[in-house]
């Protein structure tokens, strides 16, 4: 038995039954990371000693018969924009290259309280801006299926690490598809929860009204387990929803009989790679075979989602990232003449091109004289897109479609063309704009043996239906998801 090949649920159960030791499991993962991540570059920081220390502590708690969570002893890893007290949180930026937060994000706190073991922090696009993890200041993460290809982004490190069995599960963040798209590229399961379901406290803000933390896991059952650990109201986050959160494990039912699923015709149109389209159409047939009712619907404003998304997210980012000025923490330029020059040099040297591009775009969109034409218009489009979804959800339980228009592309293939990169978000941004939950899971592989992701979008706070549909689909399709690129390294 290979420890790292087990799912989170299997591992947790064996730890609870004392068939596996927490130190043994942690050691296995750390060894694997040490051996293979030199080729994958998914981790920014590995917490070797701290992980073994907490593994020992958790084992002691289990041995002494104390009540522990269903995830006790699971080695996990976090995207590097989730604050971890005493462990560097860099956002893959030179700006925060040495930033060591004196506080935990709420999710970090929850995972600690659940006796999980933090293995380290995962690579990402700088400040979560990008779809390929190529804009990281530190390293380019490779796709475990093909080391010449990107893992997607911005949570590329998280998706690659889960696909490579470097962790039992990981957390990512999703502002316009940053959990779902890399999950699709790496052949794993990624869920972006409803806006407000997971506390954003301690998630380094990119676009406050769109950001959401969510799990990236080996399978759907693990996704439900992780959701149980991280959802919930948090009084430290004013946008956190104060509702009753369900036990997501109860939705792991192999049954979608009678479930009404809408397939927006706009999601099968222009720009969609033909192999991906074919895979999705085939998946629809499979879903019908499982008892679901699949019908074509329309989300007519889909084409406006990308411009609205880039205006809103960049406007918020321009303000959120203004605090990185070299005064209080983080990078400060060495040479400057006065205060204004210090700001300019610090921000010029501390931020990469993509971050600067978004700050400039967002600053422009908020400027007096342009606000009404850009930012305000974008907010109006946002409302209309929400209305579109509401209309469809009157008659349907779920919306289904591709996660991304293509499979993983080659490193460097799109990084010189931001517009091409932005268009890759076409199927994911709408869920963020409308605040809805979305899940991506593998549905097929293309002719290059690269995974293709299928996405379900649900009603607000109805992650349960997403999990049920995804679980049923997964149980009835049984794909071989062993990353080919990784096996060449072993």
């Amino acid at each position: 038995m290979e420890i790292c090949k087990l799912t989170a649920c299997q591992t947790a159960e064996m730890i609870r039954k004392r068939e596996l030791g927490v130190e043994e499991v942690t050691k296995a993962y750390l060894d694997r990371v040490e051996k293979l991540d030199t080729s994958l570059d998914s981790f920014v920081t590995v917490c070797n000693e701290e992980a073994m220390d907490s593994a020992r502590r958790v084992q002691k708690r289990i041995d002494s018969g104390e009540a522990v969570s269903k995830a006790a002893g699971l080695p996990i890893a976090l995207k590097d924009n989730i604050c971890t007290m005493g462990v560097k949180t860099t956002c893959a930026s030179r700006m925060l290259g040495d930033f060591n937060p004196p506080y935990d994000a709420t999710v970090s706190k929850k995972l600690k309280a659940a006796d999980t073991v933090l293995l380290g922090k995962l690579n990402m696009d700088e400040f979560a801006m990008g779809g390929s993890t190529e804009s990281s200041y530190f390293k380019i993460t490779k796709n475990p299926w093909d080391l010449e290809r990107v893992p997607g982004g911005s949570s590329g490190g998280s998706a690659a690490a889960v696909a490579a069995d470097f962790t039992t599960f990981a957390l990512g963040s999703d502002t316009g598809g940053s959990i779902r798209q890399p999950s699709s590229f790496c052949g794993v399961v990624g869920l972006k929860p409803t806006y407000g379901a997971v506390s954003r406290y301690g998630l380094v803000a990119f676009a406050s009204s769109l950001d959401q933390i969510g799990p990236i896991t080996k399978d759907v059952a693990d996704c439900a387990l992780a959701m149980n650990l991280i959802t919930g109201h948090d009084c430290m986050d004013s946008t956190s929803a104060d509702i009753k959160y369900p036990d997501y494990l109860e939705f792991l039912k192999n049954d979608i009989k009678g479930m009404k699923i809408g397939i927006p015709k706009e999601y099968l149109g222009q720009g969609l790679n033909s192999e991906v389209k074919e895979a999705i159409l085939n998946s629809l047939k499979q879903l019908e075979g499982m008892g679901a009712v699949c019908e074509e619907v329309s989300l007519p404003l889909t084409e406006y989602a990308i411009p609205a998304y880039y205006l809103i997210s960049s406007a918020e980012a321009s303000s959120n990232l203004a605090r990185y000025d070299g005064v209080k923490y983080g990078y400060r330029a060495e040479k400057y003449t006065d205060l204004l020059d210090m700001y300019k040099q610090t921000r010029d040297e501390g931020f990469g091109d993509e971050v600067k591009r978004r700050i400039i775009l967002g600053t422009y969109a908020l400027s007096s004289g342009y606000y009404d034409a850009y930012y305000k218009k974008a907010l109006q489009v946002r409302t209309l897109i929400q209305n579109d979804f509401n209309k469809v959800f009157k008659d349907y339980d779920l919306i289904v479609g591709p996660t991304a228009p293509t499979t993983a592309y080659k490193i460097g293939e799109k990084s010189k063309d931001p517009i091409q990169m932005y268009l890759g978000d076409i199927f994911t941004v709408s869920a963020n704009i409308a605040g809805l939950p979305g899940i991506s899971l593998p549905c097929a592989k293309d002719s290059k043996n690269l995974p293709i992701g299928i996405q379900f979008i649900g009603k607000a706070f109805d992650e349960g239906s997403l999990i049920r549909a995804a679980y049923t689909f997964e149980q009835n399709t049984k794909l071989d998801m062993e990353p080919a690129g990784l096996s060449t390294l072993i």
Partner: protein
Amino acid sequence: MDYEVVIGLEVHAELATRSKIYCSCTTEFGGEPNTHCCPICTGMPGVLPVLNKKVVEYAVKAGLATNCNIASFSKQDRKNYFYPDLPKAFQTSQYDLPLCFGGAIEIDVNGVKKSIGLTRIHIEEDAGKLIHDAWADGTLVDYNRCGVPLIEIVSEPDLRSADEVKAYFEKLKSILEYIEVSDCKMQEGSLRADVNLSVRKRGQREFGTRTEMKNLNSIKAIVRAVEAETKRQIEELEYGGTIIQETRRWDDNKGESYAMRSKEEAHDYRYFPEPDLLPIVVGEEWLSQIKAEIPELPDQRKSRYVEKFELPEYDAAVLTSSKIIADYFEAAAAVNSNVKAISNWIMGDLMRAINEKEIEFSNIPVAPEDLAGLIGLIDKGTITGKAAKKVFDIMFETGKKPMDVVKEEGLEAVNDEAAILLAVKEAISNNPKSVEDYKAGKKQAIGFLVGQIMKATKGKAQPQTVNELLVKELEK
């Protein structure tokens, strides 16, 4: 040429909540630099604000006390600009939907009453403080004030003179003190004003070009700045110049202002709705709860003093201008019904002593009960009015009880008719000229004789007895 000045005031008041607007740090003044702060108020990565409900409550109170409408739905916005005292590089404020709007307060300048409109009151957060250290190489930042809640009270351009500005500002300060939402300590910066001022020819309908003077932190500075800027603008226009719309810095030491930045150089603050905070909803129930907590306001208290205590309008206005003074008055009035005498003592000797010693009214060493007791001693004839002044001064100096001072100093009034008669006779025989004058019909000559008698008795003789005996002797 006859000019008219047009002035609007933006007053910033720090709210007296215990904790800051978006975190649980204390708002206490002072403290070692950067000890009253946390990751939230210093803008660390990933932290989020949570609005302190008390801030809304206090701001709504201020709105209700100034006759504002209270918005049932308002929001907070980010005002973006770079400065080292602003750790997030934006100030969270309210832009187009303020919490309170459309209010008015009444002022009284030399008996002329006028209503001054309030455009709006909104909530926002204070910034930190830069410390320019001449010895260290550079500037240091203290974030203790960061996130201390403020309200900004914006008036309509309804003010027409420095006197009106002073009356408006004092009234506003008094209201805020009455409702206890701000301690209004100007020397600690918890109350400060920006003055928007323009001049125009009398009779002209359009406003002139205005300038703004920021962060005036004493009433004296506000008045001086208004007077100087009015003069500057009129002179500029008289000599054929034009007024430039600009922000000016008032230097109270030099008594002049200088230009900081023009309209063209003004910041584009790129306001937009703060996405980390929900809209502020003030429902009917909450509003009526806050309404019920509004105490008696200065104007109401003034009317009560006129009606209940039958004090002159002037006395009532002075006593109620500050809540501390009014409370002091009422504490004294509770033990002595001679309210006019209490009023006189407060407005006279007490105010004089406070000004001379430069102490705050809240730190008066004479308890109100003791002032009332002192007046009681006069009323009972235990001491003379003259001796009372001396007793008061000692009480103010030492904080002792009036009767203790009287005993220690031997200041009991002399009401021994034989002793007084002796002094009367002596005064008559020593001052034949005055006696002659009196008999010739100059009745005022009696004043001189009384003075001589009081002198001889060291001010302790009961004036009434002195008068009676003197007249009796003179008429003999």
